[in-house]
């Protein structure tokens, strides 16, 4: 075995790719997309460079959340198959580097947002980062099965931040977009947590399937999908979006509710027989992308 593989990880400076992995790029893509949607549906058009910087700051803020989350949960991540290969549990990076990187990214993203757009957007970005790290990761996640419900607010901020970056104020439409993501988060994460329940149980995280069981979780998924569908369609009757969005949102949300009903009908505790849950999880990601794409298309085609 070469000498390099026998050394302790802390003896080596972390590879730059591990810093990228620390930012959870896949999660970041959805955050960036929803932030971009908020920016594009706003009635004010920013100069390109300022819009680009606003989205960059949202991405860096999300990256900071990912890094600080992994710094705090390194020991928990080591116990779960899904997360054991991350840079910290795999021993490719020391915790202090992750902490410095996360804090640095957080400050940089907030200050740059304030300088490039406005300080209300910067404050909202700071609140979302603090909410995710302190309220969700540190406080709620290890303590309550409702962690995702309240913690989901952190992920709902990007479209609001995008809108405020463009306009400088809060309005009804971005608040509805906030509500859509807020109500979408529990069904999305609970669908995942149903088929990786053993991972969460092994790590001692009180996700709903671990604490309340499969049946209760499936019922909650279905119940949350109903107000989520209502919030998704609401911009149309409220006159905040046109019929292109309204019709598409109704169809997309109907499919979501049908898939949630299939999850509700499933009685299996075996992850191998959770095709309905896996389908809902995959569709939920598509749903949010599609919904926000249609909203932007509606605004630009209808304008």
């Amino acid at each position, binding site marked *: 075995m*070469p*000498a*390099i593989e026998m*050394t302790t990880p802390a*003896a*080596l*400076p*972390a*590879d*730059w790719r591990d810093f990228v992995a620390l930012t959870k790029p896949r999660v970041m893509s959805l955050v960036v997309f929803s932030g971009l949607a908020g920016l594009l549906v706003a009635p004010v058009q920013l*100069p390109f*460079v*300022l819009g680009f*910087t606003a989205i*960059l700051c949202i991405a860096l803020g999300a990256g900071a959340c990912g890094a600080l989350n992994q710094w705090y949960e390194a020991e928990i991540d080591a116990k779960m198959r899904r997360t054991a290969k991350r840079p910290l549990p795999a021993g490719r990076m020391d915790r202090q580097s992750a902490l410095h990187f996360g804090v640095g990214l957080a400050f940089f993203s907030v200050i740059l947002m304030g*300088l*490039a757009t406005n300080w209300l957007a910067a404050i909202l970005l700071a609140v979302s980062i603090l909410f995710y790290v302190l309220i969700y990761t540190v406080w709620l996640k290890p303590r309550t099965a409702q962690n995702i419900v309240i913690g989901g607010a952190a992920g709902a901020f990007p479209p609001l931040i995008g809108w405020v970056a463009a306009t400088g104020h809060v309005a009804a439409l971005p608040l509805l977009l906030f509500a859509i993501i807020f109500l979408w988060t529990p069904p999305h994460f609970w669908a995942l947590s149903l088929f990786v329940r053993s991972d969460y149980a092994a790590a001692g995280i009180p996700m709903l399937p671990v604490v309340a069981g499969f049946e209760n979780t499936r019922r909650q998924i279905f119940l949350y999908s109903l107000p989520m569908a209502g919030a998704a369609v609401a911009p149309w009757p409220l006159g905040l979006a046109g019929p292109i969005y309204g019709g598409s949102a109704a169809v997309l949300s109907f499919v979501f509710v049908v898939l949630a009903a299939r999850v509700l009908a499933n009685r299996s505790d075996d992850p191998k027989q959770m095709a309905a849950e896996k389908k809902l999880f995959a569709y939920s990601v598509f749903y949010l992308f599609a919904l926000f794409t249609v909203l932007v298309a509606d605004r630009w085609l209808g304008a």
Partner: protein
Amino acid sequence: MKLEDEVVRRQRERAKITAWLLGAFVILMFFITLAKTGINW
């Protein structure tokens, strides 16, 4: 590969990336300043 060589390789790689990012930041700040002051090209 020796440990020292790998350490130096990674440090150089990170230094290069940091330099590129700082350069990109300077250019970004330049264009943000132009946009904020309302100068149109």
